[in-house]
């Protein structure tokens, strides 16, 4: 069994300003090919919000 992916340093959540969806790096976005443990900064620019379809630049850091 492989070791669980570390989430150290990736815990910062980002919120979609359009719909309010919160990107949690611990969960990633598996349906969008973003594995758990991926920091928001490491997501490709072509990724979009899984709820409303807004682009990555529509997200801001949460809190």
């Amino acid at each position: 069994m492989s070791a669980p992916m570390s989430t150290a340093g990736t815990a910062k959540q980002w919120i979609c300003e359009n719909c309010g969806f919160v990107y949690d790096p611990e969960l990633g976005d598996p349906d969008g090919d973003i594995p758990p443990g991926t920091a928001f900064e490491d997501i490709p620019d072509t990724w979009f919000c899984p709820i409303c379809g807004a682009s990555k630049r529509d997200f801001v850091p949460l809190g």
Partner: protein
Amino acid sequence: MSKTAPPVDIDLSSLKFWARPYAERERAFHWLRDHDPVSWHRPPEPLAPGLENAKGFWAIVRYEDIKEVSRNANVFSSAQGVFLDDFPQLETILSFIVMDDPRHQALRNITQKAFSPRNIRRMEQQIDTMATRIVDEVAPLGKGDLCELVFKQLPGRVFAEVFVGLEDVHRREVLIEGAEQLGAWADPSYAHIGPPLAVFQDAAQRIMKIAFEEADRCRREPDDNLMSWIVRAQHEGQAMNEAELGAFFTLLVGAANDTSRHAMAHAVLNLQHHPDQKARLLEDFDGRIDGAVEESLRWSPPLMHFRRTALEDFELGGVTIKTGDKVVLWYCSANRDEREFPEPDRFDILRSPNRHLSFGHGPHYCMGAALGRQMVKSILRQFTNRMPDLVVGEPAMLLSNFMNGVLSLEGTWTPGASSSGAR
């Protein structure tokens, strides 16, 4: 905040207010945004005898305030009703939109993937093909009510055929007509059925009959469609009893069909009312259609409000909202808030950013937003290519404080041929 007299009579509780033209109502909301952004209103007038409303409500009209309430779902609950009017019996049929997390999210997750922007992008060609077939039937006619001929048909067929796998035309029509009736419970054209609640329940019963039949079919012959997912979820711990299953399906039918048809009608009207913007769209249809759809949704949100109920005291805009108070979020007002949208009364298909609240915000953000957007795009593409001289008349509007609905929209165009060669 100075309390100068409002330019128009503002009584959101009165049906007379909702019978006024949209632009006139917007002047009232404009005044509230500037002078009384969190205002208290008397209980709404009943839609029919026996539907009296006991409580007044707070009207939230500014963009940022509505976002704040929407995000705070732990404080502002959906479980005690989502309409300005109290409809406790009606709301038992509305499934997860009248629930809070975690149950709300658990039920939503069952079908979320089917309606995700990612999945709808995959379905773009399929939806375009359905729009093409409908316009194949309509283009040769040269005139007619576009609501009946087109705007009801596309969401009805997409939902029934693509999502449910329902090929029988008669049963598909039951869903389409049922969805229309669900959204028009207070409209006089349904008064022969009974009072508004009876109108709603009558539609829901017919939709649920199909839901139960389809659920049985999917238990016997599982498929990769929405009902199969719902039935499978029943066996995977998200237990829904039969009544909940029926309510869940009814909600999807209503949401998928009715709001989309109004969005399409408004898009056609808005482009006709703003010929400069229509010309801009035609200069670069593929490059500007997304912006045109967003601006039309901002300008004419199909749903004008949803309601929440405060579970604890909350300070907003210098006002204390008390535990148990009804809080109504006026999306139609937020979309014209000059604090968010520069020159909000200018219809501009190139507006960017355009983060309107027509689909709500936060955990209850509309699950069908991507599908709705795609259907509006597909229909505008068809009309542009196949009925380019389409002219529509004045719409017949639904009397409602909830749905910004277009009941009928007569159009004329040069009768055209069928689809060969059309994009």
